[in-house]
């Protein structure tokens, strides 16, 4: 195809619904012709957005010369759902229902980070009941386990190690069972709310978590036996996806990627929130800057998470799980009825039978929401992937004025080019797996 009609690949025409562009693959002829002419093996390959070894709908655009990647770029946005825009049209409490869906493998981190930011705006950080904070930590650490298990399982699967995939998803299922028992849902919980939690732990939860910790301590050794030190595993992962400290700093990479360079940066230690300074745990690091180091860090972090979970269970004291301020606390006392979880019958009896004011208050708080004083706040938590930061702005209304999530997957994925260029095509998959990007969080 000649250069003169190059614009015909994306011709526009006017319709009643606006300009419609028809993008065609017209310039392929040119590409094919040039590729045929050139005597080297330089070609451009699109990997994804629907490829079994990309994480979700990630599109990798690779320029390869033989088996060597000379240039690598990411195409993202396929899973953009406009969550940040949607948040501006819901109340502050409804926001948790949205943010939990961002990085769907770390829902409790999204919820906690968002709630910490809203609580900072409300100025009630010090009024959150201890029990609520301990349960938040407990759920976050269980969530770290489930997220790292998926990272290791899918990472293994992409190497062809299906056994480790089966193991990972088997153990993750145990965590999701606990989540289901506590929140009613395996994912997308909306359980952590501004001011505390939606409800208290159900009976039997503590026992089930204790059993899980015992079982998991045993299961974790299986990963060691199967993968740690395994020559094939090491052969595929060592020195692959290399990114040193300077690269991490420049590209803003955090989490296991940063810790694999030997810097023990963990917000739970350096900028503690939710009382992490009172828990006893270690921050594992590696000094190899590669995928194998990140794998070892994730394994060790799971052990440390189990330690924190045990400490949480020992600390659980009976008490409220929501702030005392009735202007913020959701009025519903939830209870399990014959038709599922809902407002407790006592509460309904009170608002419908005896207290008109309580009924009005309930109605106003649920439909209108509470007001948040104007200003902005930034809260960050150490998610399994790195620093998850939330910037919230309020204009004094009942809805967020602006919520922005600094998702670690989004930032870390930028490092893909630095890790992959100059390496082999097969190593791209290992490197991307070691970043552990989740497209729900990347695209939001």
């Amino acid at each position, binding site marked *: 195809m000649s250069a003169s009609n190059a614009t015909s690949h994306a011709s526009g025409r006017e319709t009643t619904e606006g300009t419609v562009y028809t993008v065609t693959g017209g310039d392929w002829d040119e590409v094919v012709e040039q590729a045929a002419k050139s005597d080297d093996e330089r070609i451009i390959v699109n990997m994804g957005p629907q490829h079994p070894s990309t994480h979700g709908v990630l599109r990798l655009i690779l320029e390869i010369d033989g088996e060597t990647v000379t240039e690598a770029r990411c195409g993202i946005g396929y899973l953009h759902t406009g969550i940040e825009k949607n948040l501006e*049209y819901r109340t502050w409490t409804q926001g948790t229902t949205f943010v939990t869906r961002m990085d769907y493998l770390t829902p409790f981190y999204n919820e906690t980070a968002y709630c910490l930011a809203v609580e900072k705006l409300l100025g009630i950080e010090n009024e959150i009941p201890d029990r609520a904070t301990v349960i938040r930590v407990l759920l976050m650490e269980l969530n770290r386990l489930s997220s790292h298990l998926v990272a290791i399982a899918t990472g293994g699967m992409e190497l062809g190690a299906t056994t480790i995939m089966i193991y990972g998803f088997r153990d993750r299922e145990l965590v999701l069972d606990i989540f289901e028992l506590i929140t009613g849902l395996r994912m997308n919980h909306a359980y952590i709310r501004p001011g505390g939690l939606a409800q208290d732990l159900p009976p039997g939860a503590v026992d089930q978590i204790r059993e899980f910790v015992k079982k998991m301590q045993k299961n974790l050794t299986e990963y060691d036996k199967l993968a740690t030190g395994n020559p094939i595993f090491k052969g595929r992962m060592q020195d692959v996806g290399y990114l040193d400290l300077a690269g991490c700093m420049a590209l803003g990479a955090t989490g296991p990627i940063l810790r694999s360079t030997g810097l023990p940066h963990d917000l739970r230690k350096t900028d503690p929130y939710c009382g992490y300074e009172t828990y006893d745990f270690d921050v594992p690091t590696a000094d190899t800057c590669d995928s194998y180091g990140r794998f070892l860090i994730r394994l060790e972090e799971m052990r440390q998470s189990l330690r924190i979970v045990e400490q949480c269970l020992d600390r659980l004291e009976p008490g409220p799980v929501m702030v005392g301020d009735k202007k913020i606390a959701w009025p519903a006392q939830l209870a399990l009825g014959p038709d599922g979880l809902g407002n407790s019958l006592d509460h309904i009896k009170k608002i419908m039978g005896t207290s008109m004011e309580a009924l009005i208050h309930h109605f106003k708080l649920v439909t209108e*929401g509470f007001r948040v004083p*104007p200003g902005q*706040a930034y809260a960050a938590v150490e998610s399994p992937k790195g620093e998850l930061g939330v910037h919230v702005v309020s204009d004094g*209304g*009942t*809805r967020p004025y602006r919520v922005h999530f600094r998702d670690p997957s989004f930032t870390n994925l*930028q490092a893909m080019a630095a890790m992959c260029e100059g390496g082999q095509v097969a190593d791209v998959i290992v490197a991307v797996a070691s970043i552990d990007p989740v497209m729900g969080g990347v695209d939001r």
Partner: protein
Amino acid sequence: MSESNNNGASNNGASNNGASNNNGASNNNGNKAAGGDNGVNPEKDLGSQNLPGQRGDHGEEIRVQRGMFGANNGGDTSGYGGLVRSVRLPGASSRPYGGWFDEVADELEGALEEQDLLPASAIEKTVVDRDELTFHIAREHLVRVARTLRDDPALRFELCTGVSGVHYPEDKGRELHAVYHLRSLTHGRVIRLEVSAPDDDRHVPSLVPVYPTNDWHERETYDFFGLVFDGHPALTRIMMPDDWQGFPQRKDYPLGGIPVEYKGAQIPAPDQRRSYS
């Protein structure tokens, strides 16, 4: 003043709302007839303690809100149509800022002076709110300030956690804000930089030369707000399709949606619903 009491009650008590509706309507009408003034002047009266949020003349006004429930097409029959209030964000703080904030501010001002840059011309204002330190930076000096914050050993903010855009359509001349959070791993501190650009000149210098991590973040902010980051290596859309028209996170860009029927009632689209902000 009867007007102020009425306003207080309407915002304050859930239980008073229904009852004070009629009162509010008649008072507002009376006010209109008497003074020709459309509602209560927030500058004059909002010192009252029973109003929610931070009102009054402190802080910086970003918007004047009229009426209630988000009704702006003349269909507001609630009686609050004449309500006028100003929306204010926390304003500039004065020394001492407290804690390590003074140290960072001193070091930054000193380092800028060393580069023959008058701190007052680079730092438009300093806001301390909710234990967070914010420097509002004149956009032409943003890169220099960021480089100083990164390189000065006493400051050393190595990690930029990206940029977040905010759109204040009624803050004339400062409609678009770019907000950066910088983290110092060396000193364990977080500060915020904020720059603004008018809507008819949406340009902010790119921080990619200082913090390469901002590459995608600036593309995202451009994609959603239309802020052009001058000097960015490849400022293209990142989330939305390349041929998308408009910038979705701006406040004048509609959310969209269709009304949905639920149990016989029409539920309007989320951006058409009653709003209390």
